[in-house]
């Protein structure tokens, strides 16, 4: 598989604080790539530089063969972005929002079809402020898909969602991957990273401290002689919760 994103020596400086310290990595076409790390590790800043939302101070980003710093407008046409603090115009229906967003790309879309992909077809006439957290995130993804992007960026897509809504979103991300769209996401949830990501990078204070597939990262850890202090339980509280409240997705 060819590399769709290649990041070299990417750096961001605010005054004399360097928040992203010359990181390099590549993302392969069609994979789900995760960026993990504690708050303030530089995940969002890294993502926003790749998305041409923030100026790149040093280093380079090539996306589908295009230099992001030199052609930000071309990049915007081929990527879809779900921002961490994403907001939509209030008092504008989901349908109207999608028509407007599509027009920004010079496209016409069938808004109902797009909404159906994220299971929000019945909310076409609602305003975004009336949606639940999970529905908002799903709509945000729908809006990022209006231009049929090559790469979809999701910044902490499941933060603040309840377990059902989170699982619902995972299914959606898997479906998007199946369509051949490359997904780059950040997350705090290890379970999410392990289930969704083909490869991941772990960031801490502006540098990448590890990068591989989840399986290999675990293997490497075990190779270093790591043992869990307690016997692994056959089920945990989350399994109990999901079992009791029903795995079936109740929202929407």
């Amino acid at each position, binding site marked *: 598989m060819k590399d769709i994103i290649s990041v070299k020596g990417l750096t961001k400086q605010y005054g004399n604080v360097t928040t992203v310290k010359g990181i390099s990595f590549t993302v392969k076409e069609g994979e789900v790539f995760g960026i993990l790390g504690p708050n303030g590790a530089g995940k969002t800043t890294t993502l926003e530089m790749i998305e041409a939302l923030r100026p790149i101070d040093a280093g380079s980003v090539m996306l589908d063969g295009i230099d992001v710093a030199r052609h930000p*407008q071309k990049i*915007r046409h081929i990527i879809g972005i779900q921002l961490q603090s994403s907001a939509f*115009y209030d008092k504008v229906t989901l349908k109207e929002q999608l*028509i407007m967003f599509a*027009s*920004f790309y010079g496209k016409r879309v069938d808004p109902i079809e797009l909404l159906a992909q994220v299971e929000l077809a019945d909310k076409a006439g609602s305003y975004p402020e009336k949606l639940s957290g999970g529905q908002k995130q799903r709509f945000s993804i729908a809006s990022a898909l209006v*231009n049929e992007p090559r790469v979809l960026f999701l910044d902490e897509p499941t933060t603040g969602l309840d377990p059902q809504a989170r699982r619902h979103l995972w299914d959606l991300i898997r479906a998007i991957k199946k369509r051949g769209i490359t997904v780059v996401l950040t997350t705090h949830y290890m379970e999410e990273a392990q289930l969704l990501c083909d490869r991941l990078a772990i960031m801490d204070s502006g540098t990448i401290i590890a990068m591989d597939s989840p399986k290999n990262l675990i293997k490497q850890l075990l190779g270093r002689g790591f043992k869990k202090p307690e016997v692994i339980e056959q089920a945990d509280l989350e399994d109990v919760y999901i079992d009791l409240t029903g795995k079936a997705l109740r929202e929407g």
Partner: protein
Amino acid sequence: MRAIFIYAWTCIKRFFRDPVALFFTLAFPLLFLFVFGSIFRGGGDVSFNVAIFNQSKSSFSQEFVTNLTKEKTFKKVDIGSFDEAKEKMGRGEIDSIISIPTEFGQPNQQQLPSGKLDVYYKESNPQAGQTVATIINSTLTGVSQKITGQQPLFSVEQKPTTTSNLTQFDYTISGLLGFAILSMGIFGLANQFPAEKKAGSLRRLQATPFTKGQLVIGTLIYYGVIGLLSLGLMLTVAVSVFGFDMRGSWLLLLGFLIISIMLMLGFGLLIGGWAKNENQAAVLSNAVSFPLMFLSGVFFPRYLMPEWLQGITGYLPLTPVVDGIRYITTENASLIDLLPQLGIIAVWIIVIYALAIKLFRWS
């Protein structure tokens, strides 16, 4: 291109779903219009505003004027020149001008005071002026009878003046329209962008290929449509309720209003595009709009200001707007007559838009 129109159209739909925005943009200026309209159309009491020009040095005429102004029926208005008084009468600020010639009150052959005075009234609206003349005539007849018994000593001549029949309201409307354009352009827009920066919706647009320029043009279309709607509503009420007397071309007025809206929107774009939050925007919009409100002839006519201040304030951005509207509506000014105003507006538009685009921040 399509993106710009869809953006503008979406914003317009959104505007009509927001009752607060609707009230402040459409109903609030109308409220102002009703307040000012009722003040300046009002009257209906029995007192008359008169200007008295007394050229006579005779003690009789001095006493006559003093007695006249003691009466509750007459309210003496001090006015510098006769021409100014005529202008004021044209606007309905005063009802009549009483002119007392030098000979008035001088003793005649019988050594009794006599003479003739002139009462001017507005040709197109003569009732008030003629009533004043009648009252003065009967007063003077009474005086004559006291002195001589029956022989009339004085006469009153009624003279029409031919100033146009414009009411105070017709002059006020230009200030009201100017105020509406100012408040919509500056307050409306300067608040909208920072609010959207805070909410994050502007940042979401930044993530798409929609450019700064497209955003600005789309916003101008959106506010232009809303602004014309608001002004149209004001003019409709002005004509139908307050009998606003439009002297000029409606088409020229429309064009001039569009240019004026664009100018004031430039200030809103500059402030709202630059400000990071609503507090910055509020401080800046007040700092810009208050001086304009008080120095551009919106609430106080500029001719009341000292010469030097009139000179400076003539170059403020809102002054040519208010002046231009007044010249069109009261003097039937042509496009060529408006060139000085349009020139000042054009310079401001270039400066403000250049700054606005340069200083715009997405977040």
